[in-house]
């Protein structure tokens, strides 16, 4: 009795598995790799795309990470359908690839909430992070005293890359004395518990911290949207040549108003 029942269950399992196999066999697959900063947004968009009525069961996503440069290299060699990039095109990039902008993201300079600095200029930020200025007494408008504690992200972080590009430029480096944290959470916690700390973060990670206005413009979603806030970066899906087929549909979907409404929750939509 029990044996025949378990046999029935087994047969049902095999049947459903083979059904699932035939279903996936017909589905188109979009593979992506690249920026760890874009990946959460790409995952969100992919989920929404897969759940659209006309795509149900027809599209599959494989999303890998690794950093913007990995995504760009992969797509230029045809290893993935789309690359994810959180940096702008560079002259040294491989030829024949197209950057499709899908969203924007603001990078804020953040300090402990007990140290609400009114504004920092690019030169001031460069002086502080490169170690030329090491005491809060040398920073006008700072209410903290004593040495400046730099709290930055590890080399593999996309936010580190964006900070370097937006605020530091290509030649300046962050001072070697800086503490490097492996995640947004640890970085935020460190800045939160140290009144002398300063760091940077994507603006949806700034809760509980003081986002410092950059060149007099507060780091808010609205200012980043209007383009007044200069510390923002672009998110791209990179294709090899102009995107075609299902990849083209996914990019078009990502830029549609439906998808941009999803973008607006944590990032800056295109319009």
């Amino acid at each position, binding site marked *: 009795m029990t044996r025949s029942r378990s046999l029935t269950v087994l047969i049902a399992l095999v049947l459903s598995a083979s059904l699932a196999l035939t279903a996936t066999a017909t589905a188109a697959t979009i593979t992506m790799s690249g920026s760890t900063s874009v990946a959460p947004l790409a995952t969100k968009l992919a989920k929404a795309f897969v759940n659209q009525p006309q795509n149900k069961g027809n599209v599959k996503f494989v999303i890998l990470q*690794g*950093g913007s*440069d990995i995504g760009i290299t992969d797509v230029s060699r045809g290893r993935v359908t789309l690359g994810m990039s959180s940096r702008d095109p560079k002259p040294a990039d491989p030829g024949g690839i197209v950057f499709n902008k899908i969203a924007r993201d603001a990078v804020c300079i953040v300090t402990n909430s007990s140290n609400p600095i009114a504004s920092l200029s690019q030169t001031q930020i460069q002086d502080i992070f490169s170690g030329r200025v*090491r005491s809060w007494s040398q920073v006008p408008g700072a209410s903290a005293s004593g*040495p400046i504690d730099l709290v930055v992200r590890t*080399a593999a972080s996309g936010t580190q890359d964006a900070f370097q590009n937006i605020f530091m430029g290509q030649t300046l480096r962050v001072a070697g004395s800086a503490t*490097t944290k492996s995640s947004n959470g640890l970085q935020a916690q460190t800045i939160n518990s140290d009144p002398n700390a300063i760091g940077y973060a994507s603006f949806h990670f700034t809760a509980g911290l003081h986002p410092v206005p950059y060149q007099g413009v507060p780091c808010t979603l609205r200012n980043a949207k209007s383009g007044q806030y200069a510390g923002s970066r672009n998110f791209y899906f990179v294709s090899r040549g102009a995107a075609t087929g299902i990849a083209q549909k996914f990019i078009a979907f990502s830029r549609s108003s439906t998808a941009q409404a999803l973008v607006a929750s944590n990032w800056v939509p295109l319009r």
Partner: protein
Amino acid sequence: MPEEAIAASRPGTGFWSDARVERLLGAVACLVLLLIVGMIGFVFAKAWPSFADNGLAWFTSGGDVDLQLEDIFASPSNPAEYVYHLRAWPLLWGTFVVTAGAVLIGIVFALFAAIFIVEFAPSQVNRVLEPVVRLLAAVPSVVYGLIGILVIVPWVGEHLISIERKESVANLVQLDGASISVGILILTVMIVPIMIAIVVDALRAVPRSWIEGAAALGANRWRVTWTIAVRTARPAIVAAAVLATARALGEAIMLSMVAGSASFAPNPIDGITFLFEPTRPLASALVENVEGLSVVPFGETLFAFAAVLLVSSMFLSLAGFVAKQSMRKYGVRP
């Protein structure tokens, strides 16, 4: 019982005959060996480009490790232009300072706690103490890390480090509370329970007649314990230290949270400031950078960290084995 079942349970007959079971279990044991050999081979093959490019200079100091890692991560995509330059001494030194500090402090605590449990504590106290020690050994390290980063690190940063002390080294390193002393403190709390458990077992295994013999000669309780029991249990104390060192070497998450995450080699010449300087042990450096694993030269550098950790734990077992040999004579086996 049916006739066949009895026949099958006899040695040398039936499907599960002794010879077959022996071969089967032997195969499983060989599989474990094969797994270890394969793993070591894989790690070293992956790590080789990093060692080959830097040579022995890999183990020396020079420049800022964080900046070097950044350069490796930003390597051009052409394999001929991969960057491997790394001088990993601050990471190695950090690993050594934190591990040695915690094990040295821990072994003293563990030894006296174990002596108390075995020789002096009333049995009612033991009924509570021993389960608590075993429970402590099972607490996940990330819990200790959370307590460290939320409570101890801010407290140390606010109350123990003066602004003058911060300013005295501000050009080199930041003192914000996350430091080797907090790392050593929490690591000690983490490894002491295992050491206590091992030493307690060893002290209990000391033959009662030896202790009674010493007591009969007129030695007091402490002298008997110190000269007979502890002396006999020395191999177990070494074993406890080796096991604790292995755990401390591999501890990544907790230390990454409380030990400062700066690739800095704390300098003992700095006096008390030394205790508040941050560092980043190898295992923490590995886990903190793991999101860059897919960048080929960066991944190979991380595998080089892993290879160094593997080799040090192998040498550790070897050193423990050698140390125990000379103590075997009067010892009980751990």
